[in-house]
């Protein structure tokens, strides 16, 4: 089904640019053309289709679904909804306050916020089509587990004391439901708006991601990775996670980088740990969350994620060795 993108890349090299096949440049260009076209194609389709159903997943509705469930179910529901609800870090603050005001525990709310950037339907489809379903399943399951574990810890350690005090004083009254135009035309208009909005927001991450992937693919020798990033090197996982911390990309943008790393023989655990570190911890989200969380909670949040990503890396490297 995705052969057309490989053929397009073949054609670009052979006929359009007349590059010698097998050279470094040809390899890099092939990777770039195939991945860029495939990712943008899938991105538009998935965002559009999800956009048609999106009205079911507004933050108000999600709050309504989780509100009143028991804690145990709350965590699981929160990470599942976090995975399918798209939201940018700019809406994390109203969402956080809205959840708490609805009586949803801090841990359940944080489970949602941890999972939301890590796992989303667009990334899942693209990951599946590029890296196969095994890798995708592993990624989704570990991402959700980290979210649930983080949420449970936050509640068990009674971290609600590290939520800014003003948050608890906010009373929302009647919740204003978002505007819904349920007609087919309205849904299509909305879905198309989502496509423009999301593509406009993340296209640069994808281009940069594919660019880095192409460069790794074409120019970095496999031996280099074998020497430094193999499972034999006990420092490879922590170094990968620490390198990923200051970097920030959307989950979709990091996939081509991961693809190139896997192809170079970097172990799956190390690659997933790196991916999660890049997408799961982002400076912009931390700055936003500082408005509602005291520094202690932010530090816990950052340290917890860093350690969990390292554990995930080691664990998966052992399981898939």
């Amino acid at each position, binding site marked *: 089904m995705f052969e057309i993108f490989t053929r397009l890349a073949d054609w670009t090299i052979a006929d359009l640019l007349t590059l010698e096949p097998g050279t470094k440049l040809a390899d890099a260009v092939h990777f770039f053309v195939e991945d860029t076209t495939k990712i943008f194609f899938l991105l538009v389709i998935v965002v559009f289709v999800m956009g048609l159903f999106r009205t079911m997943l507004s933050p108000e509705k999600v709050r309504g679904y989780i509100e009143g469930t028991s804690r145990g179910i709350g965590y699981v529901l929160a990470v599942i909804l976090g995975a399918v609800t798209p939201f940018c870090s700019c809406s994390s603050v109203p969402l956080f306050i809205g959840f708490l005001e609805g009586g949803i525990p801090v841990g359940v709310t944080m489970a949602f916020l941890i999972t939301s950037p890590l796992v989303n339907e667009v990334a899942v489809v693209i990951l599946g089509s590029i890296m196969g379903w095994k890798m995708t399943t592993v990624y989704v399951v570990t991402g959700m587990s980290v979210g649930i574990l983080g949420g449970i810890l936050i509640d068990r350690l009674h971290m609600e004391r590290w939520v800014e005090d003003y948050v608890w004083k906010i009373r929302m*009254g009647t919740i204003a439901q*978002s505007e819904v135009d349920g007609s087919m035309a309205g849904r299509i208009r909305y879905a198309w708006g989502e496509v423009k909005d999301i593509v406009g927001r993340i296209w640069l991450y994808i281009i940069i991601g594919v660019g880095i992937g192409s460069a790794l693919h074409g120019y970095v020798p496999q031996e280099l990775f074998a020497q430094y990033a193999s499972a034999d090197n006990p420092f490879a996982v922590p170094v990968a996670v620490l390198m990923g911390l200051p970097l920030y990309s959307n989950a979709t943008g990091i996939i081509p980088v991961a693809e190139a790393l896997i192809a170079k023989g970097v172990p799956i655990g190390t690659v997933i740990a790196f991916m999660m570190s890049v997408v799961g911890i982002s400076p912009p989200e931390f700055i936003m969350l500082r408005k509602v969380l005291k520094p202690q909670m932010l530090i816990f949040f950052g340290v917890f994620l860093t350690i969990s990503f390292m554990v995930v890396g080691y664990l998966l490297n052992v399981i898939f060795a």
Partner: protein
Amino acid sequence: MKSFKVLGSGCKNCVTTAKLIEEKAAALGVVVDIEKVTDMATILGYGVMSTPGVVLDGTVVHAGGIPKTEKIESWLRS
């Protein structure tokens, strides 16, 4: 005079919403007062979780996205 409040964290859609109301009001010759509210506590206090939201003379009339032109016109004509 109609008093509008546009609720939003300062995202692009919020700026667009305020501009749309301003333009429509000018086109229809209605005098309006538009205030941008960025304080989260105030926004949530109106019960709005999805921004931009629009408040007309103290009542929330819209939430979650840029309002349609017809809707803005109906507010201005009401």
